[in-house]
């Protein structure tokens, strides 16, 4: 594969008359942790939702591993190797932690209703293999104690972890994290950043993270893209971006932003 793992060129998304994302270029190289930051409403999650194919772009292309996925269907994305988490946790609330992770492996399990209904050869083995993989991830994330708990009974912080586990279970090449530190305090935030680093090493994947919290991304990301009003206003290493006057101005007036040393 030549070139970046994920390459987005000229991405433009509009809703009705409102242009939410305007000509954005973005790339993630293999092994990188890239951050997509910007003030609220900058269009960051919209970019994610377009990569996930929940939204249709007006213009632009998205290439993953040299394959054009701009018009792919939303359920094919995970099969290409891109898994994501959601800002508002999207778990299957009636299922247990384990079952949610097993859902994450849906794409790698073979066969359909007839095969399952008749319990043909291989179904049991598939299920066992999937459960073993899920247990491995649960163990890594320290969730074994909640393996059989119905996720709606878990606190928000743990639900986010379960969702992370669900994304990892399918051996993705690229992990999309949507505001992973939302609702986390400073200490949890640091722990989360550390976890992402460990995940990159352990599972040999790349990460694109949308974040609103500057301090979270500063220490974690290799490179940053900054969006404001749907446009890319800056890109570079965290230290480049932090001192960029355009970026500072975009964030000015946002009371919660602390551009602090990580």
């Amino acid at each position, binding site marked *: 594969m030549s070139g970046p793992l994920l390459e987005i060129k000229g991405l433009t998304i509009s809703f009705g008359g409102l242009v939410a994302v305007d000509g954005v270029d973005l790339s993630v190289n293999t092994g990188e942790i890239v951050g997509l930051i910007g003030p609220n409403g900058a269009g960051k999650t919209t970019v994610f939702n377009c990569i996930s194919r929940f939204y249709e772009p007006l213009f632009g292309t998205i290439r993953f591993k040299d394959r054009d996925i701009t018009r792919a269907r*939303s*359920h094919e994305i995970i099969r290409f190797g891109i898994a994501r988490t959601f800002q508002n946790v*999207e778990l*299957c609330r009636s299922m247990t932690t384990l079952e949610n992770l097993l859902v994450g492996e*849906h794409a790698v399990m073979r066969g359909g*209703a007839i095969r399952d*209904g008749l319990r043909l050869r291989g179904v049991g083995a*598939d299920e066992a293999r*999937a459960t073993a993989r899920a247990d491995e991830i649960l163990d890594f994330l320290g969730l074994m104690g909640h393996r059989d708990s119905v996720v709606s009974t878990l606190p928000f912080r743990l639900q986010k972890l379960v969702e992370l586990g669900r994304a990892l279970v399918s051996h993705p090449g690229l992990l999309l994290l949507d505001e992973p530190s939302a609702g986390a305090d400073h200490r949890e935030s640091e722990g989360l950043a550390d976890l992402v680093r460990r995940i990159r090493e352990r599972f040999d994947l790349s990460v694109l993270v949308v974040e609103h919290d500057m301090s979270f991304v500063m220490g974690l990301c290799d490179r940053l893209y900054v969006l404001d009003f749907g446009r890319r206003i800056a890109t570079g290493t965290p230290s480049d971006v932090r001192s960029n006057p355009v970026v500072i101005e975009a964030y000015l007036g946002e009371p919660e932003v602390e551009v602090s040393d990580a």
Partner: protein
Amino acid sequence: MTMHWLRTRGRAAAPYGLGLAAVLVIPPVLGVIPGVAPGYVLYLVSLGLIYAVVAIGLGILIGHTGQISLGHAGFFAIGAYASALLTLRMGLPFVVAVLVAGSLSGAIGFLLGLPALRLSGPYLAVATLGFGLAIPQLVVWQGSWTGGSSGLHGLPLASLPLGAFTIVFRTDQDYYYLAAAVLIVLTIFARNIVTSHTGRAFVAIRDSEIAARAMGVDLVRYKTTAFALSALYAGIAGALYAHLLHGISPEDFTVLLSVDFLTMIVLGGLGSVGGALSGALLLTFLQNALTRLPVVHDFKNLYIVVLGAILILTIAFLPRGLAGVMRSVRQRWAARVRHDAPRVDQIVELGEGSGVR
């Protein structure tokens, strides 16, 4: 494959074993009880078993996949009419007719699943309602070959060719065994689906379509499959129904029947195969028992009023249905046996979620 299957079933097979034993034991027991006409009771039970087939399929669609259908009497009718016409007019053997009828119903269910991709909630409810209303009307419209409003009668007996000889299901007891056998097979199939990755995909669609899509669940494929599956079950059940009654007419397939099916799965507990089964049997029993109660005024009125009351009371006080009650009882019993206080997440679970099984 069979040995491996039997070995892995293990403890999970216990309820099936019990069910099988119960099925075999009922007719001789009935014959011994005085004052009971075993033939008629078996006819009623067969009816309940046939409805249970519909309920199980519908339960997968509504309980597991989170869709809605107010028109499943339509699939029931398609199965009934297809089988009736194939055996009566074309002389096809019973088994072939049932399978074709079920497949036809399933195929139409698949087609009905397509608009369902765009619709949800009340809009889907109305669309399926329309389907259910349209089918009997179409039957009457094409009365020249469907028997119209007078229906089809004198259907041939159900029979199963086995090599040199043929089993003919002549009596109520014979038909009872046929219905029970079909139900058992279809229940196992349904349980397998529900505990598999297909079943998880269904529940994922119900709980979060977004998550399902992001995790690789093709909504088109799985929603249409859920519809097709529930229609297949209803179609097979309809075929069995036609031959149980030896005749059918459009009035057998009204909106009230679709409502009955809904009531069965709500009563039994959404999201549970066992629940659908027990809900169907219970409702069939209730419907017939109520019409027999010695009351001063019309039986008809009381039965309707009581049925309505049952519906409301079930939703108000037993939203998880009979299966939910069983689950609570089992969990409380398990907790007591272990001398634990119920865990926090268990208590919450009793009120939250309906589980995958």
